């Protein structure tokens, strides 16, 4: 099997990187402040929490499943944790891990309903999306809550951007290793390829799928906590639409919704950065913010189109050419 250079294969593999580079060049040339250290830090710090939040969901998508409840999971977990810290004097050192724990528990509830009870993942997580948000609104009476002063202050420290970028980088590398270098990660991919075959080969499909939902709930709370320190409050619309931003980042980054395909690094990171960079660039160009959702939609379509093209090219099976049928029966 000698690989020859093939323009189509090349564009399929690197097309996204090329477009990404072109976008960067366009903004760098078109605006004054885009390519400054400060703006780069801003972009990375904006993207960091999103990327962390999307890692868990990315695992779910890699199995070929979906979770649209993460925004509501985040809201409920933060509302609960924040209330306890604010009104019951729970120390931050316990409060934050508690938020993570609540996220993981809510994720495992998704996992139970989907894997054990066998409800369709979209329906399950949609139900959770509504129900958990309702619960959190009831808990907060629909009011804006400040976060504990200690966290607010931490969000304002000089090196906060660097802190958040570094933390996210470490987490992304860890999840990347989880996907590529652990049995769990490879089983996630195996299930995304074909759950039945995976089961026949000895993969514990139910267990792995359950764990991806736990990860999804946990990671949205980890990323969300990083973000909340920037926003400084828990507001009634917190987390709304986060699931779709996260799905968009994953899909734009080449994680196939059919499962079995994609990566955290570079995939998810590139996808998330693209979304943030384009919006940042548009800001510098002075484009109306109302245009952003339209542009985001366009990016998603482009990414899906590229994905569809890719699967169409891949679908052409390379058939072994040799003497086979002519001589096999002789």
């Amino acid at each position, binding site marked *: *099997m000698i690989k020859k250079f093939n323009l189509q294969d090349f564009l399929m593999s690197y097309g996204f990187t090329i477009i990404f580079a072109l976008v960067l060049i366009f903004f760098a040339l078109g605006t004054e402040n885009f390519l400054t250290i400060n703006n780069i830090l801003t972009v990375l710090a904006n993207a960091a929490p999103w990327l962390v939040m999307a890692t868990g969901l990315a695992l779910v998508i890699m199995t070929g499943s979906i979770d649209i409840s993460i925004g509501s999971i985040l809201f409920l977990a933060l509302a609960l944790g924040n209330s306890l810290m604010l009104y019951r004097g729970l120390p931050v050192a316990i409060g934050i891990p508690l938020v993570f724990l609540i996220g993981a528990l809510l994720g495992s509830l998704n996992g139970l309903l989907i894997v054990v009870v066998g409800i369709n993942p979209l329906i399950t997580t949609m139900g959770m999306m509504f129900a958990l948000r309702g619960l959190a609104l009831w808990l907060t009476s629909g009011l804006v809550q400040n976060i504990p002063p200690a966290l607010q202050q931490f969000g304002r420290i000089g090196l906060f951007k660097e802190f958040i970028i570094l933390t996210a980088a470490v987490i992304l590398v860890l999840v990347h290793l989880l996907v590529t270098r652990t049995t769990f990660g490879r089983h996630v991919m195996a299930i995304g390829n074909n759950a039945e075959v995976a089961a026949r080969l*000895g993969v514990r499909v139910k267990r792995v799928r359950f764990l991806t939902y736990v990860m999804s709930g946990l990671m949205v709370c980890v990323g969300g906590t990083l973000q909340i320190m920037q926003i400084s409050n828990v507001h009634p619309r917190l987390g709304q639409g986060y699931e779709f931003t996260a799905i968009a980042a994953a899909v734009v980054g080449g994680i196939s919704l059919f499962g*079995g395909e994609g990566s955290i690094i570079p995939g998810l990171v590139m996808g998330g950065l693209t979304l943030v960079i384009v919006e940042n660039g548009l800001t510098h160009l002075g484009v109306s913010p109302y245009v952003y959702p339209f542009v985001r939609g366009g990016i998603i379509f482009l990414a899906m189109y590229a994905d569809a093209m890719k699967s169409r090219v891949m679908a052409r099976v390379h058939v072994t050419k040799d003497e086979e049928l002519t001589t096999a*029966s002789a």
Partner: protein
Amino acid sequence: MSAVGLRMVNIQKSFPGIQALKGVDLEAYAGEALAVIGANGAGKSTLMNVLGGVLRPDSGEIYIHDEPAEIHSPLDAARYGIAFVHQEMAMLPTLTIAENMFISTFPTQAGLIDYRTTNEQSAQALARLGCDFPPGTRVSHLSPGDRQIVEIARGLLIHPKIIIFDEPTSSLTRREKARLFDVIAGLKTEGVTVIYITHFLDEVFSVCERAYVLRNGETVGGGMIKDLTYQGIVQMMIGAKEVTSYFGQKADQAGELALKVEGLTRSGVLQDIGFELHKGEVLGLWGLLGSGRTELLRAIIGLDPIDNGKIMVRDHGNLKPIQPKDAMNWIGMLTENRRDEGLLLPMSVKSNISLANLRGLVTNFWPLVNAGLETTLAEKFVNRLAIKTSGLNQPVATLSGGNQQKVVVGRWLERNPTIFFMDEPMRGLDVGAKAEIRTIITELAQSGTAVLVVSSEIEEIMSVSNRYLVMHRGRITGELPGTADKDELVAAAAGNR
């Protein structure tokens, strides 16, 4: 005689409505290759799935080297040193060769997969089969034959005591096959028990020492290969029971040419296929599983791409060449798998019949499907084909298999195809329903339709055909007259000429 490597005692397994294994005993020795032979549905796959941990038997014991073995899962089987090389390839295309081979048995170091060992060991297993694919290659880049090699290499990986090959050669080239036979010989000298399942009897004679023949979930014979003959094995496979003769019912012989296929080739699947189909005849396309029967039908009607070939149909009196994508205008197709490919199960009998003909139900005046016409259409076929339903709105899912099949037939009849392909039209039907489908086929032919029937059941195909085409490994290897008997057909299909 060497030690007993494997003993299966009184294995029973039933599925809803059928007892697949009626207490099968099997003994295999270390260092021998044992062939397990049987027609479709004889129970050989079920038996091997029990051994491989894919299915749990209802009762029975398994002993490996005289130790009782409790096999509840494929992993248990692997732990007892049983490797199962599946016929339908169990591959995860977006993962690499090495990952596919090690997916449930990754060696790890401090929680991380040890890719060095993984790659080394898979490369070694592949090398035994004479392959040098880099273990990091994605399986999606491999051809079906190469994937089969990976599948076999996966079996070798655990250094098995018992290895089951289920139709391992169906997608291998001659060179790869020879290599596999060498490996099997090597395994035998190492004292491994090889169990070899195949339809290709010639392979049995060249690879195996001993054979078991199963029929209807029971062992019906076997012995040392050197004491068996080709004809003897075939006799055991199909049983002494004579084919019921339906010749009287068969349609009259052929009219003018309706379909002509020349040089049809699909690389790796079909090779230079040519045949003619006449109006009013029922042509039986006969061959073993994997011989390319279904693939041929799919290629002609454009469901699979073809590399080469000419297809001509009779259109307004003239024979005209057509593209496969247009073939459905003349050819009706009953698919092999009516539940998945032919019917919308939750929908009603009426909707399923009208589905392919909705355009004809739209009147010019009011551009919506005319409910009255739809009902009339459905009633017409329910009556004509005697479909037993509680009403036109009964969901198709709740009909019996025979009636479901009739719904599919009815749908196509409305389009008046001049040619009808039927892939396994009687599969899974009870005797009564089979007879009804048979009558429908005969009537179709008598009314001038050209019918091509595929079936794995020799009795079925013999009961309707006026003429046979025999397929073997992607080629048409022969043509037999309607008077051919069972032995001739079986021998032709197994490639014995």
